[in-house]
């Protein structure tokens, strides 16, 4: 019985995948409509998964609060914020003025400040790296970062000097040759991996939906 169910799930996954894939290559109204319906079901399942994730987050932090575990006040704050924004979104909509005020007053500055701290942290990490770990890779890493920073930011002395032009050329060479080459390799690897994974799912060799 278990084997039959596994075969059924594999057949469903393969047929659905083949239909959606065929919709990309064969532009027929039936395939397009069928593919759209199947993708709509996937979106619906993604929404349900979001609700499940919300339930899991709430249960975990409620448990921490009930057991008075370490850091439970933060869990309580999270639960209160979650319930508050949930009530605002459900009953007043996501675009109510209170929700926008909360977003512009809390979420946006907080996340921007964390990103600003990231700039400080990266600068300090570069300083420590070059001052304490003196090996070839560290020098290469920090040297490339310095060249890109010099070629990206403005110069107090102006942008007419030959040194600045040279550094600009070096920066463009690094960004468009080395960085773009590495990015192409990453994208090709991602594409090949996605194709292989898709084929494995279509052929039921890989069953992420379970046995």
């Amino acid at each position, binding site marked *: 019985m278990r084997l039959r169910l596994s075969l059924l799930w594999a057949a469903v996954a393969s047929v659905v995948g083949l239909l959606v894939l065929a919709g990309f290559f064969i532009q027929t109204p039936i395939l397009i409509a069928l593919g759209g319906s199947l*993708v709509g079901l996937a979106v619906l399942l993604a929404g349900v998964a979001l609700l499940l994730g919300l339930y899991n987050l709430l249960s975990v932090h409620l448990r921490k609060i009930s057991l008075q575990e370490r850091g439970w006040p933060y869990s309580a704050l999270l639960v209160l914020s979650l319930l508050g924004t949930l009530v605002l979104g459900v009953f007043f909509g996501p675009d109510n003025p209170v929700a*926008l005020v909360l977003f512009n007053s809390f*979420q946006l500055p907080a996340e921007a400040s964390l990103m600003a701290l990231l700039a400080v942290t990266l600068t*300090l990490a570069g300083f420590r790296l070059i001052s304490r770990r003196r090996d070839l890779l560290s020098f290469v890493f920090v040297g490339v970062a*310095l060249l890109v920073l010099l070629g990206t930011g403005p110069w107090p002395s102006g942008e007419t000097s030959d040194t600045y032009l040279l550094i600009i050329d070096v920066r463009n060479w690094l*960004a468009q040759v080395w960085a773009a080459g590495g*990015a192409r390799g990453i994208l090709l690897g991602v594409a090949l991996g996605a194709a292989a994974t898709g084929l494995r799912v279509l052929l039921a060799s890989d069953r992420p939906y379970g046995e």
Partner: protein
Amino acid sequence: MTMADVRCPMCSTINPADATACSVCGARLKPMIAGEAESLAGPPEPQEGEAGDWLARIRSEVERKAETSGEAPPRPGEPEWLNRLRPASGEEEGPPEGELPEWLSEEEGSAAGPSEAAPGEVPDWLARIRERQKTELEAAAEEAPPPSADDDWLGRLRREEFLPTEPEAPLGEEPEREAPPLGPRPPSRPLPPSSPPAPAAAPPPISATAPPSGRIPPPSGEKPAVSQAPPFMGISKDLLEGAMPKWLEGAGPSSDEGLPHMPALVAEEGLAVTPESASDLQMGSIDIPNWLGDLRKDAGVAPPDAGAPGDSLARATLPAWLEAMRPMDTFRPVVEIQAEDAQEVESAGPLAGLRGVLLAEPVVAMPRQPSYSGARLEVTERQFALADLIHRMVEQEASEVGPKPPARRRLPFSRWAIAGALFLAVALPALLGAPSLSVPTLVPPGLPALITLVDSLPGDRPVLLVFDYEPAYAGELDAVAGPLLEDLMQRDIRLATVSTRPSGPPLAERLIRRIGDAHGYLNGQDYVHLGYLPGGPAAVQLFARDPRESLAGGFLLAQEPTRRGMWSTPVLAGVQQFSDFGAVVIIAAGTEIARTWVEQAGPWTGASPLVMVASAGIEPLIRPYYEALNPQVDAVLSGLPAAVAYEQANGRAGDARLLWDSFGTGMLVAEMALILGGMYGAASFLLRSGTGTSES
């Protein structure tokens, strides 16, 4: 052959008496030791005068005795032993001299032995011998008492068993037996294979360890028939011929009403001994006659013990290492096989339809105890070392860790210095407006194409703006996307926003309102927020397939009645599908979401351009989609320098220019930090190397 001839000891050839060597094989006939030949030929005849007086006296006594007994005196020239044999046989016992029968004279020529002589051909001497033997037998039969029931025939049998085996007598001269042999014959004299099986009613063989339990009647006065079988068979002729002796007729199956049940001492092959039959084997429950009980006592058979034989045995004590090697009994040692009626009918294979066929599962599939010692643990030195290491690690984990000494409090000078320098570098230009850095004069490579693309956008079709970034990237991406939005608004191009992130619509509203106020853009008339698009890549594909079906909510719509009918607003008029948008501008901060839009929505854009406004960090991953023979991205705007250059190209100073000085000073501080760090590291390395050189 005469008495004087000599037989060769090697080849048995008859040679003349005077020959010293064999005429055939050449072996020496006379030993080289003097006197030995004479001893072999016979006792030497003492010469006259050589014998002592004692010998003369002996001879005279012998002659005198012979004369008194009527025997002939010893003939001269014959050995003494031959003369002693002669009187034992007598003249009547043997044939007269010179009257040897023909069969005896033909002994050397005939290997079959003497033939049976006819009655008329029996010589007189042999007839006299037979007559005398017959007379003696009749006399003995008359003198012997008649055999009775209390005759100790079994005792004789026992004595005969324990007596040494007599040499085999020739056929016809076997001594008569009074009872058939009941005991087993010695193993060195097995029954010939041609012997017929014993009768069913015949008593089992009696042995010392297994006394018979049945009532074997003692022999009556009638003796068993004399067997003519050879004695090694031990079975009478009647038994061999299948006939039952008379004294055993009472024990036959026709008259066994009074006989007890005789259980089989040894179970037949293939038959299990049932408990009922096993109980029969208890000798105490069998009626044994007195005479047989005495016999068992004599044989020293101990009565069976009441308890099990294994109860009195002490359990073996295995050493610890041997006990540890004992395989665990995790498998069923015995495979249960159902009765034939309960077994299923074979449904497949050549034995289909048969019941009770041999199962393959007990041999192949069903678990059973392995026959080999699989639990034997072989530990190499390396494995033992690793196990010891793990053991010590676990012990260290369990042990209490002592308190660490308080670390010396050090002021994180470098951290605070760098953070303070960065803060001042970013804040001073924004607060004081100084220092003022020069704007970039070099145009990024993709900027002219973007400006040309925006200039060519149709004014009657809305542009879709995808706000897919988190609020953390709002400081950078708002400044980068600002010049493009201002350029679009300057051309009065209607805008529609969408986002796959919940924070996207508020960010879009915030940016469009800040820039659009200067251009008089109004929500619902000049721009509209399609809202949040949940579902990730699948939702992007679905939206690209059919925008109207995938989004129906909207965000911050001006009029409530139009919430469900946002697609009927003037902003989205004429948009039926994804390619109806004048352009698709993707504002993204991450590579994944940028790739998702390019790959999922790119095929549905049609002739509409796809513009990527991205953070400087993901530019290298966007460029492959842009710098290609068949580009999927038509224009790229990334980083603050490109945005400043865009503003410079448009001739308007925007958010990018306001941030440019702070951005420039902050970059300078970061560059200085890296340069100082390199100098500090080089100096410390040189100092340490110099100190090490001086010490060495």
